[in-house]
C-alpha cells in the first residue's frame, strides 16, 4: 500500500465524514428515545422524566374514566399491579372497547402538575388467543346493536 498524498487526503476526508455522520446518528437517536415505563416506574422517576417521551403501559382503572364531549377531553387513571396509578389526560374520542379493566398504552409526556399528557392512546392488542376473562365482554356493544337490529 502506497501512502501518497491522494490516499491520505481521501482517508482524512472519509474519516471526517464518518465522524460527522456518527455524531448525527447518535444525536438523532438520543433526541428521539421513547421510554417504556409502568406507572410505578414513572412515579419513582418523578421530576427527572418531565418532558421526556414516555410510553406508559398499564390497566385502565375501573370507574376512573371521565369523558367530556364538549372539550373532547378524556381523563382516566392508569394503574399497575403495585397499585400505583397515574392520571392521564388525552384528547379525542376513546376507542370502541375503551373501558375500565382493559390494558392500555399511552404515549406522551409526564408534566409537573402530575398529569400524563397523552397524544396517542392505544388499547393493548394481543395476537394471542386468551379465553375471555370473567367480567370482560369484548363484543357486548356489538351484541346490543345486533339484537336491536333483529327486533
Amino acid at each position, binding site marked *: 500500500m502506497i501512502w501518497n498524498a491522494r490516499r491520505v487526503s481521501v482517508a482524512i476526508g472519509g474519516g471526517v465524514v464518518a465522524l460527522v*455522520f456518527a455524531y*448525527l*446518528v447518535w444525536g*438523532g*437517536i438520543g*433526541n*428521539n*428515545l*421513547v*421510554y*417504556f*415505563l409502568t406507572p410505578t416506574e414513572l412515579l419513582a422517576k418523578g421530576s427527572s422524566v418531565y418532558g421526556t*417521551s414516555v*410510553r406508559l403501559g398499564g390497566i385502565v382503572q375501573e370507574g376512573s374514566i371521565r369523558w367530556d*364531549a364538549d372539550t373532547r377531553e378524556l381523563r382516566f387513571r392508569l394503574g399497575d399491579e403495585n397499585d400505583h396509578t397515574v392520571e392521564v389526560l388525552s384528547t*379525542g*374520542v*376513546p*376507542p*370502541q*372497547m*375503551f373501558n375500565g379493566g*382493559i390494558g392500555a398504552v399511552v404515549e406522551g409526556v409526564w408534566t409537573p402538575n402530575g398529569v400524563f399528557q397523552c397524544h396517542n392512546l392505544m*388499547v*393493548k*392488542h*394481543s*395476537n*394471542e*388467543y*386468551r379465553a*375471555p376473562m370473567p367480567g*370482560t365482554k*369484548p*363484543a357486548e*356493544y*356489538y351484541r*346490543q*346493536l*345486533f339484537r*336491536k*337490529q333483529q327486533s
Partner: protein
Amino acid sequence: MNGVVGHAATLSALLLAAFGAVAAYLGGLRRDARYVTAAQRAGVGVFALVALAFATMERALITHDFSVSYVAQVGSRATPLFYTVISLWSALEGSILLWALILSVYTALLALWSRRHNAPGAGVDPYLPYALGTLLCVNIFFLLLISWPANPFRPMSPIPPDGPGPNALLQNSPFMGVHPPLLYTGYVGMSVPFALATGALLAGRLNPDWPKLIRRWTLVPWTFLSLGIVAGAWWSYEVLGWGGYWAWDPVENASFMPWLTATAFLHSVMVQERRGMLKTWTITLIVSTFLLTVLGTFLTRSGVLASVHAFTQSPIGPFFLTFLGLVLLGSLTLLAWRSDALSSEGRFDAALSRESAFMVNNLLFAAFAFVVLLGTMFPLIAEAARGVKVSVGGPYFNQMSVPVALMLVFLAGVGPALPWRKGSLELIRGKFRWPTIVALAVGAALAAAGVRAPLAWLTFVLAVFSAGLLVIEFAGPTSARHRTTGESWVVALWRVCASNRRRYGGYVVHAGILVLAVGVASSATFRREREWTLTRGAVEQLGRYQVRLDSVWAVHEPNRDGVIAATTVSVGGRVLARLNPRLNYYKSAMEPIGTPAVRESLREDVYLVLLAYTADGTHATIKAIASPLVAWIWLGGGIVGLGALFALWPSAGGAPRRDPMPELGRPRSRPVSEARV
C-alpha cells in the same frame, strides 16, 4: 397421520440436505463429478420432501386435523377456506415451514441450473458445488428448526374439537395471502447470492462471468423483496387503520435493511463487472444482505423486540443467534483468507464518472442501512447496557433518512447520465440543460401554487430533474434509431430497450422509485386528518369532501361479527363514493379490529376509519384522512416490478448487445468454467 407424515418428511429432508452438503463440498474439493451429481440430486430431493411437508400441513389445515399442534394453534372450523389456506404462515412454526419451502425451491433451481454447467467430461469447476453446499447448509438450519424447536407437526393430546382460528389481523384482509409469500420469496432468495459469493471465495477465485451471474440471481429475490415491501406498506395502509403505510416498525426495518444492502450490491457489482474494482466491498455487501435477513428473522421471530408482527415468545432465539454468529464468523474468515483474490484491477479515473456516482450511491445506501440498523437495534443495546426499556421514535428515522433519500432521488437520474471512466463538462452541460430548466419551472409553479413545505418541494423538483435525465437516456438512442432506420417512434423505443434490457429495465426501476418518492413526500407532508362523532344523517367537512353518516348496522359472518358505518362521501354535492368502514369482532382477539374504507384515486385518497359507535346505532365516531398522491407509492412499486421483470427477461437468442465498452480488467487466474449466462 398428517403429523407423522409431515414430521417424517421434514426429518428426511434434513438428513438429505446434510448428505447433499457433504457431497457438494467433497465434490468441489476432489473435483469429482459423481459427488457433485449426488449433491444436485439431493438438492432436488430436499425440495420434494419439503414440498410434501408443506402440502401435508395444508391438508391438515383444510381438513381441520386438530391432532396436529399447528392446526390446533391457528385453525378453526369457522374460518373461510381462503384464510385457512393462508393461515399456514400466520404463526411462527408455519412461517418457518413456508421459509423452508421457498429456500428449497431456490436450492432445487440452483441444483438444476448448475447441472448444466458440469456436463460429463467438462471437468468440475468447484465454485458451483461449493455454492450448492453452502445453500444446503442454510437448508439444514431451517429444517433443524422445524424438526425440533419449532416443529409444527407435534401430536396433540387430547385432540381439541376446534381451534381459535388464525391471528385476527391476518384474517382481516386477503392481502395477507400475497404480502408474506412475496416478502419471503425475496428475503429467502438472498441466500442464493450469499451461497454463490461464499462458493467463489471457497474456490479462491472470481470467474469473469461471476458478476453477471450473481447479479441475475440477486435481481430475482430483489424484485420479490421490493414488491413484498410495497405490498406490506399497502397492507398496513388498507388494514391497520391509521392511514399510514410505514412506521419504522422493527419488522418493516428488518425487511428494508437487506433491501438497502442488496440494492447497493446490484450497483457495485456493475462496477466490478465493468472495471474489476470494488470486489471486497461487493462481496461484503452480499454477505451483509444475507446476515441482515437472518438478523431480521431473529429480531422478529424470537420476541426480543415488540412489534405488530412479532409472534409469541419462542425458544428459537438462541438457535438464530448461534446461526448468525457462525455465518458472521465464517464469512469474515473467508473474506480475510481470500483477500488476495479480491484485489482491485482498475482505479478511479475521474471524480465525474459513472463509477463515482456508483460509489456515492453505495455509500448512501450503506449509510442508510446503518441508520436503520442502529435505530432498530438500539432498544436491545440500551436494555443490555443500561437496563432501560426504550424504543427509537419514528422522527429519528425520518430525520436521518430523508436527506439520504433525497440524494438518492438526485442520483437516480444523474448516475445513468454520467459516462463510464471520465465525463466531460460539455457533455454534462448538454445533458443537464433541459432537465434543469424543466425542474426549476416545475419548482416555481409549485411555489406559486402554494407549496410551502421545503422538503416536499425539494423532492418534487429533484424527482422531475432526475426523470428528465432518464427521459433523455431513452429519447437520445430512440431518436437516433428513428432517424437512421426510419422505424416509427414506438418501434424504435422498443428496439432500443430490447437491445439492452438490463440497462433500460434498470432505468424503468429508477423511474418507479421517483414516482414512489413523490408519493411518499406528498402523502407524508400534505395529509389532512379529522375526527368526528356523527349523528345519523349529519355531515362533516374535510377539505373539499363532505362526509355523511347514513346508518350504523351490524352483520354476522361465520368467522366474525362486524359493525358497519355506512357513509357517503361527496364533493360539492356530487356523490364521490359510498364508504363502509367497519369494526370486526373475532374469536381470537379481545378487541375489535377495524377495516378502514378507502376511496383510492391517483390524485388523492379519502380514508375513513370507524373508531366507535353507540349501541343504539345513532352515533358513530369516524376518523377521516385525505392523503394526496398516496396511490403513487403503489404505482411506483408496480413500475419497479415491471422494470425489474424487463431487465430479467432473457434477451432473444443471441441478440447483439449494445455494449460499446469492451470488458476491461480480466481476473488474474484463468477461468476454467464454461459457464454462460
